[in-house]
């Protein structure tokens, strides 16, 4: 009898409920974009391009390791520019509270905690914010599925995300999420006046150790004309990064084998 009622209830639920909700799509996208593998390494080159065409280069190695409870640790070593060479930056990211951030300054041989409240601050002067690098919590926005459409040859969900907080520089974001990989192939950020502010594009996607990975991406501020192009030169997953890597000791003396 019980199973009959259950079957009846299921039959009465409208068909669309079997499709993914917008929040589920964004949760899967967040996992595909920021959490794949047990750990991850990328040596990346960031080109910061001004409206006038002047280029500045940031070259760094990013190491990430996942921990239980959606916690992540990031370790970043800078190769370029010369004034930040050998600098390291470490983040412990928690799903429910402010990150812990540390910076190592080689000339002073000093590791310091740095304030981390403003997650929308620019990462090393680029058009990417800290949140763009390590992920914005899905719960901070209200998501709606706007439509489904093709972006180039790829079938995508188009999701509108509206920040719950008012102190964010964008009023809403549209994401084109690939139905196959769940990676965001394009994002449009609209400012508080509703004007288009920034556009993110996934310019190249490669599968590395079975994980679809955006290996070239651009964030362009369409209002200022400034843009940032990030290219992953070496990408790898499941390297077996040790927990002890994410420590003051190794910020001061990063192991060559991991940062090269």
């Amino acid at each position, binding site marked *: 009898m019980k199973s009959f009622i259950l079957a009846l209830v299921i039959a009465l639920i409208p068909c669309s409920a079997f499709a993914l909700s917008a929040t589920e799509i964004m949760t899967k996208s967040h996992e595909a974009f920021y959490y794949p593998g047990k750990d991850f390494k990328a040596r990346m080159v960031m080109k*910061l391009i*001004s409206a006038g065409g*002047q280029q*500045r*280069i940031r070259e760094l190695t990013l190491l990430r390791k996942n921990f239980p409870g959606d916690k992540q640790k990031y370790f970043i070593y800078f190769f*370029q*520019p*010369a*004034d930040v*060479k050998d600098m390291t930056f470490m983040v412990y990211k928690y799903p429910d*509270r*402010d990150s*812990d951030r540390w910076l190592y300054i080689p*000339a*002073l*041989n*000093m590791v*310091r*905690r*740095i*304030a*981390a*409240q*403003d997650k*929308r*601050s*620019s990462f*090393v*002067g*680029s058009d990417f914010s800290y949140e763009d690098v390590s992920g914005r919590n899905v719960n901070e926005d209200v998501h709606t599925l706007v439509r489904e459409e093709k972006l180039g040859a790829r079938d995508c969900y188009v999701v509108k995300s509206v920040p719950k907080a008012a102190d964010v*520089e964008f009023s809403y974001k549209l994401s084109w999420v690939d139905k196959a990989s769940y990676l965001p192939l394009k994002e449009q950020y609209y400012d508080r006046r509703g004007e288009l502010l920034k556009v993110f594009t996934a310019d190249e996607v490669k599968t590395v150790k079975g994980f679809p990975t955006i290996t070239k991406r651009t964030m362009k501020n369409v209002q200022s004309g*400034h843009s940032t192009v990030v290219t992953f030169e070496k990408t790898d997953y499941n390297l077996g990064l040790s927990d*002890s890597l994410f*420590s*003051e*000791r190794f910020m001061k*003396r990063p192991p*060559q084998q991991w940062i090269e």
Partner: protein
Amino acid sequence: MLFVFAGSALAINIAKDVTLDGFLQGNYSVDTARANPDGDYFKLAEERLQLKLEANKDPFRVFIKSDFFHDWIDGRKFDSELREGFVEYTSDKWDARIGRQIITWGVGDLVFINDVFPKDYDAFFSGRPLEYLKKGVDGAKFGVYPGFASFDVVVIPFFTPNKFPSPDRFWLFDPMPQITDRPEEEPQTSLQNTEVALRAYKDVAGFDTSVYFYRGFFRQPSAIPDNHFAPSKLTLVFPELSVYGASAQGNALGGVLSLEAGYYESRDNESGKNPFIPNGQTRFLIGYQRQPWTDFTAGLQYYVEYMQNYSEYLANLQPGIPAVPKWDDLFSLRLTQMLRHQTLKLSWFMFYSPAVGDFMLNPEVKYNFTDSIWAALGSNIFGGGNKASQFGQLARDNNTYVQVRYEF
């Protein structure tokens, strides 16, 4: 013009595991109010080349950082300075670094309690880049990482004093200017005089927590007269010092909270009755840093030092020397705004002592023209307090400085 180079970095890979890089720098600082005691207006006028040579061959690393400079003030001389030079060995559970090296401990921003390592205040007050505030120690540092905590053990057989502004370039308080015979006696190199500094650190409830111990010497000399009533000679000595301290730093109250304390045991003046040697002290620091808006950081600190045996100090104080308060304190405020994709940095740093009433202000603008060329323009402004207080005595030494650097 020194900075004729442009564009891309020139860092050189000599071999696979050997790199050479560095910078060319011009650094000039002029007294904005009056001439220096020696009649010149410049606190600083020099060009400097720094070369950093690094060779890696696991588990060993060799690092040499050496400066070559041309000084326009001290007889227009060329000179060099080994900033750091060490060999490092790294294994799984421990490492060792032997040679000249810069060590920075504690959580203060320009306030030092457990950072007992040598400083260059001449550099700090005359407008050099901040890294020149720290001097290397000549010794060995061992790191031990057994898992439950981490340990630093520093052994320094060769004493290095702090460097203070020179009386030629800075107007400084001097209670006995008529006495010019001032021999300096640094602690001799011996097993007994070898300085030892220890630090144990670990994460405790999300706070980076450290405890510290130091046994060695004050790095600021004490002037000991040969005769109390009619002195003809002042011997500059470095009294014995031990420091016991602790610090913690972590996220709290929507920002980063820092706490540090230390007990300074003045081993050559335990009773506090010797007017020529500092009394023991207990020092406390609380600091708070947060980001109220994008690319803007504010840091506030309050520091206080309590003098032990204060009545003995007052009873023995020499005539003509203003008394230091029993509770001496210091506020600091640092404001930093980054603009134009973090190429333009506006900063404001301020020390103010409520107990003494003196202050130091340091506004600075720094701009990165390209990835390899930056320039900074700033001022050091001193005043308040009295003729002997830390910043009050520098009231005639306000200066404006320029730093220009090409990094490769």
